[in-house]
């Protein structure tokens, strides 16, 4: 088995389309899971007992059940309950719920690392809890966890590969298609792997840029 360039030359548009779809899903899921995870982390700062119990249960389930099973549960299970979802919605929902649990824990770690004095200072200028979180705690917490969050983006990129099982046309699906059409496995999957490594490289570079930009409290300036 060897790498056949003529196969690649003939079928590369499929892979390119897959690349675009993978990038789209990665970006969308990045935004949704960041927002959702942060939201969950904020909810946990209120320390309402019942809510906390539910959120901890969600976080544990989200982190300790494989994404594939969660995806099947949402894709096959929710329609059985009468909630019909299109494939892209189910895909984004599954990744958001899964990654949101991880991100919630990361952000919560950041919030916990902010000293109690900051809460008290916010109180002393008569901010309520929501205002304290919004203006004092969250900006500092996010600034602290940016490196971990950047590290986590590559997981979201890799998660999108799993969407191949529900027939989203991303890179892995494209590679599978080319493999089926040409039986040239090394060409198909090898190019796909190269594309993922390239995407991973780009993400790492953008990530380190973001990290550097945020090192001096950029989040603080935004808010």
């Amino acid at each position, binding site marked *: 088995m060897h790498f056949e360039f003529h196969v690649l030359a003939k079928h590369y548009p499929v892979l390119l389309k897959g690349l675009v779809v993978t990038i789209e899903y990665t970006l969308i899921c990045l935004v949704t899971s960041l927002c959702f995870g942060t939201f969950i982390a904020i909810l946990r700062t209120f320390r309402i007992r019942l809510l906390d119990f539910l959120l901890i249960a969600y976080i544990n389930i989200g982190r300790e059940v*494989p994404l594939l099973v969660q995806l*099947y549960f949402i894709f*096959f299970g929710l329609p059985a*309950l009468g909630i019909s979802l299109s494939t892209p919605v189910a895909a984004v929902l599954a990744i958001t719920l899964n990654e949101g649990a991880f991100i919630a824990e990361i952000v919560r770690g950041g919030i916990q690392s902010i000293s109690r004095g900051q809460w008290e200072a916010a109180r002393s200028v008569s901010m309520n809890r929501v205002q304290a979180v919004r203006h004092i705690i969250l900006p500092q917490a996010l600034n602290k966890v940016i490196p971990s969050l950047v590290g986590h983006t590559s997981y979201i990129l890799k998660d999108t*590969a799993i969407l191949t099982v529900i027939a989203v046309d991303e890179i*892995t699906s494209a590679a599978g298609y080319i*493999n089926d059409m040409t039986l040239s496995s090394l060409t198909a*999957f090898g190019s796909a*792997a190269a594309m993922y*490594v390239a995407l991973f490289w780009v993400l790492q570079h953008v990530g380190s840029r973001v990290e550097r930009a945020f090192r001096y409290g950029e989040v603080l300036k935004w808010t």
Partner: protein
Amino acid sequence: MDLTWHWNILRILFLKGFIPTVKLVPIAMFLALLVGVVGGSLRVLRIPVLNHLLGIYAYVMRGVPTILLMFICYFVLPTGRNPMNAAILALVLSNGAYMMEIVRGGLEAIDRGQHDAAKAVAMNFWQSIRYIILPQAVLLVLPALVGQLVLLIKVTALASVIGYVELTKMALNLNGSTMSPLPIFFYSGCFYFVVCHSLKWVADRCERITKERIMGKAPIHGLA
């Protein structure tokens, strides 16, 4: 859909799904650990070309999704189109790379002064590794390794895409024949959850013991 039906589903999922999943884990874990310990030790030695090759291996494995790795192991690498071998190979390749980095991190975290101290009491290289470095390194990396084991167990679900009949594939098959996805995927999720959650409990305990051993039993604020 009475109780017997649910019981039957659980029984089938356990016998024909959970057991094959569990079969993958020890072999894959052992081999990945082997890759991790050997690779990690080699990386600490910084042998010029080998170090770069191992670095590239780790980088590629961090970039390539495991599901694609499954396909590569099944279709491209010579595993004889045997789903079990291919799945184990994919798990070992990806988790081995992570474990390599964990072991390297653990070994590099140990202060150089420890080496010098061992030399000062006339230990030779192997003695210092055996009595001074390893006991500390094992304590340091154990929690991360158990965490990696949890990840490995979750990733075995991906073996279903190359036709290895394990928990997720069995759930998918049952869903196809009974058309009741909610209980079936719920139960299969429960199996994963119970195993991973108990292992995570073990990992947390390991971490606490490590902290106690290294920093003493005195209550340190924020670490307890």
